[in-house]
């Protein structure tokens, strides 16, 4: 055994020298570094742009609320008569727009890894006393053609391209030696074939995975200070484990195909075939399957349902809706009296109608969330069908751009919407005027991060699945190598 270890060292040293001399590994490595560098740049700039957009939206909120408070002061001091539909003393105006705030999900420290759903699902919603149907259906706007093409992010480079580079430097590990006749010579030494293959793979794996790990980590640590926190370093380690396991899988697969003793051209064909099936076809097939087993409810039906509820609530609130705006010709009615402010009947009706809409549509909306969560569970359960799925999902989870974190956000938004409405309901219905102090007691949005334990175990589980697959392939490979036709 000891002799095999020293031989392994010898093989590694020799291979490294050969590979440096013929430049192919160097080229593959440089190419990988280039791809990763570009993907990193993409991820970093886009995450920054998203964060800036959210910061700007929040800052606009601050500005608007400051203006509302200032106007309220002027109105109370009798210096100004407010607008009927933008009255800082009117709870319906304040709850609807003048005092409303955006709820926002902050991007995770590792967000630049994967765009995930971030180019489709909104990272912020304007919550007001209006109905959910007015804001929960928002989505990011982006050229659908580009959504279709996908983004060039690190998740793409590592999931799609890293395996190809791995295969390109390893598809002819043995076949080339055999075709050149050097394999027979090598094995005339007391050198086991597994040792030889392992040594050859170790050099290549070390170089490629080293680049795949070092370049991104250096990039993040340098440009995103938030990744330097202890808990984020743990996340980085898990990410590294994910990448290593994924690389391991592809090297093991390549080792196995090499051990079959076919020509190098056939090896290349078999390996690219595996790549196509595992990276291109299986994810699409699983997507198809998942949406067939747990289909999203019909959005078309939802539209119909919305219409029916709205129709009904217009009829129910007809009397309020027919009440005139009193302020016309009576400007004093726009001012609060003794802390009371009678909200105009029509605005009150709008509030009641929104409340009715939300109460009656909730079950339908919940079904969408449930079905999506069920789909995600299926993807989690059957993701092992392809390491590409495990890798991609694992990275979106770590990046915080996957479905589960967005759902976590939407749940919080809905809960916050409930609190916001609860706060304004008595004020609108009983006609209590908004005071300056109210702005302090209005519900405040705080984003609660997903449980990091869940994220960690989620990513680790996927890593574990890949390691198992890699180990199985390695065992098969060693078995095959015992019967390898050297001559």
């Amino acid at each position, binding site marked *: 055994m000891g002799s095999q270890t020293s031989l392994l060292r010898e093989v590694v040293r020799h291979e490294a020298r050969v590979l440096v001399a013929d430049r192919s590994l160097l080229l593959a490595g440089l190419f990988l570094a280039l791809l990763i560098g570009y993907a990193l740049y993409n991820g970093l700039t886009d995450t920054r742009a998203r964060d800036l*957009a*959210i910061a*700007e*939206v929040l800052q*606009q909120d601050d500005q608007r609320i400051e203006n509302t408070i200032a106007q309220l002061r002027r109105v109370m001091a009798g210096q100004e008569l407010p*607008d*009927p539909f933008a009255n800082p003393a009117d709870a319906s105006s304040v709850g609807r727009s003048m005092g409303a705030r955006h709820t926002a999900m902050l991007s995770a420290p590792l967000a630049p890894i994967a765009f*995930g759903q971030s180019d*489709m699902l909104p990272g*912020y919603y304007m919550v007001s006393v209006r109905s959910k149907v007015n804001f929960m*259906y928002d*989505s990011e*706007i982006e*050229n*659908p*053609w*580009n*959504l*279709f093409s996908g*983004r060039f992010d690190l998740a*793409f480079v590592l999931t*799609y*391209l890293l395996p*190809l580079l791995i295969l*390109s430097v390893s598809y002819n590990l043995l076949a080339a030696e055999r075709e050149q006749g050097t394999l027979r010579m090598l094995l005339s030494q007391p050198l086991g074939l597994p040792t030889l293959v392992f040594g050859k793979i170790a050099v290549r794996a070390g170089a490629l995975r080293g680049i795949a790990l070092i370049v991104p980590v250096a990039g993040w640590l340098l440009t995103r200070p938030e990744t330097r926190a202890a808990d984020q370093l743990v996340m980085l380690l898990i990410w590294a484990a994910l990448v290593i396991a994924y690389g391991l899988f592809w090297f093991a697969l390549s080792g196995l195909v090499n051990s079959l003793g076919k*020509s190098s*051209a056939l090896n*290349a*064909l078999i390996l*690219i075939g595996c790549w196509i099936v595992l990276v*291109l*076809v299986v*994810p*699409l*097939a*699983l*997507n*198809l399957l*998942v949406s067939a087993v747990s289909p999203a409810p019909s*959005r*078309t*039906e939802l*539209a*119909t349902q919305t*219409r029916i509820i709205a*129709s009904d609530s*217009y009829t129910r609130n007809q009397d309020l*809706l*027919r*009440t*005139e705006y009193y302020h*016309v*010709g009576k400007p004093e009615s726009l001012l609060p009296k003794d802390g009371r402010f009678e909200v105009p009947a029509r605005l009150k009706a709008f509030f009641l109608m929104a409340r009715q809409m939300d109460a009656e549509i909730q079950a339908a909306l919940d079904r969408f969330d449930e079905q999506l969560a069920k*789909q995600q569970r299926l*993807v989690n359960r059957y993701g092992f069908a392809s390491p*590409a*799925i495990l890798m*991609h*999902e694992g990275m*979106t989870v770590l990046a915080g751009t996957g479905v589960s974190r967005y759902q976590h956000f939407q749940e919080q938004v809905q809960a916050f919407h409930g609190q916001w409405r609860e706060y304004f309901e008595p004020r609108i219905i009983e006609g209590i005027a908004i005071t300056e102090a109210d702005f302090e007691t209005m519900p405040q949005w705080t984003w609660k991060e997903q449980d990091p334990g869940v994220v960690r175990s989620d990513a680790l589980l996927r890593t574990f699945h890949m390691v198992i697959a890699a180990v199985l392939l390695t065992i098969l490979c060693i078995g095959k190598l015992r019967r390898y036709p050297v001559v």
Partner: protein
Amino acid sequence: MSIPILIATRDVVEYLRDGRLLWTGALILALLATALAVGWQRQTEARAERVAAAKLDYDDWLQQPERHPHDAAHQGMHVFKPEPALSIVEPGLIPYTGSTLWLQAHRQSEVKFRPANDATGLQRFGTLSAAWILQMLVPLLVIVLGFNALAGERERGTLRQVLSLGVSPRQLLWGKALAIAMSVALVLLPAVVLAVISVLAAVEDGSRLDAALRLGWMGLAYALYLGIFICLVLAVSARAGSSRTALIGLLALWVAMSVVAPRLVADLSRSVYPSASRSEFNKKLDAELNVEYQRAWNEQVGEGTAFGTDVPLSQWGIGLKVHDHAGYAVMDRHFNALWESYSNQQAMQEWIGFLVPIITVRAFSMGITGTDFSQHRAFSTAAEHHRRLMQDIISQDLVEHADGHGESHFEYLAERSLWATVPPFAYEAPKAMEAARQNFRSLLILAAGLVLAVSLMLAATPRRVVA
């Protein structure tokens, strides 16, 4: 029999014998059949559902009780994008564009409910469809069949033999091209039959010809696309030192073209023609709308604030009309600028498609099917026109009836007959020939790509004298 045909038949028999055609062909065919079945199920379901929902929505609009017209406008109506018949074959951008639009008072809205928003992250790997298989996998079949077409003959020494028989290198090359084309056709034939039957069965009697025409155009585009690949493969095979080098080179080329380039090119087009994010778009639109509203109220109602304290209720009908009309031009400007940036991005990518034909064939395939962005835009525009029609009918009714009521504006309830004056929304997608005309550029780019590929192949023709 002419020599190329002779060579081609011999090669096809060879492909069948060595199992390449059987294995890869069977795999592709199985995938195609699955994709078509799924496409059929999705298409028929979506179509039936939307027709039913559109009728339900409009019926409910008609059956509204007497109501203040502006309340009716606030409730508005939903319109649904018709599902094209060929989406069975090519779902195109359907996962990334919604199909439901809520037409409401005051503001143009986005088409909501992208199916991808209701799907997991797996959706971003792509959609399994017949078109996807044709674009991604069939070129691989071409590579597998053709990588050693000439390189292999040279390695075995048979190239010299064949040429010494008096077969010209060109004839050999055309024969090889024909062999690959015939094999691909053999694999695709059952799928094509299946696709034609399912598409023709899915459309109403009146639009069969239209669907058949679209299928014809589509077939032409894919023939050009695969032709490009056949020539490229043979060019590489003729020039490569060994069949192994040819294979590796071709696979690398395929990865670069099909997997890497679309994303890179999308990035490039985005940086040349930047498009607004949601926050930018809304911020600019709101700001300009406010300015425009204020100006219109000042000029036409004599009051700076919309529905301000000094506007008597007897002027709310006219005020509403002024308000809406002030917004139309602003919304047109902003939405058109956004959509134009998308069109420019796509056009730029299609031009690059001269070198990366998958992009161009995608564009044409979606365009001729009616699942592309330009038809989504046409639908959105038509829907917005309908919204404005509804708005105008309603403001006019308010001007005529409610404004006369003096101070009791909201007492006014419109007769139920008013609802029927807003017609049902009818959107007809461009016909086959119109769609072909709109996408002719992509077809030309593909044809130019084929010319380039043929020239490359001919330039790579092996010399008659082999040293």
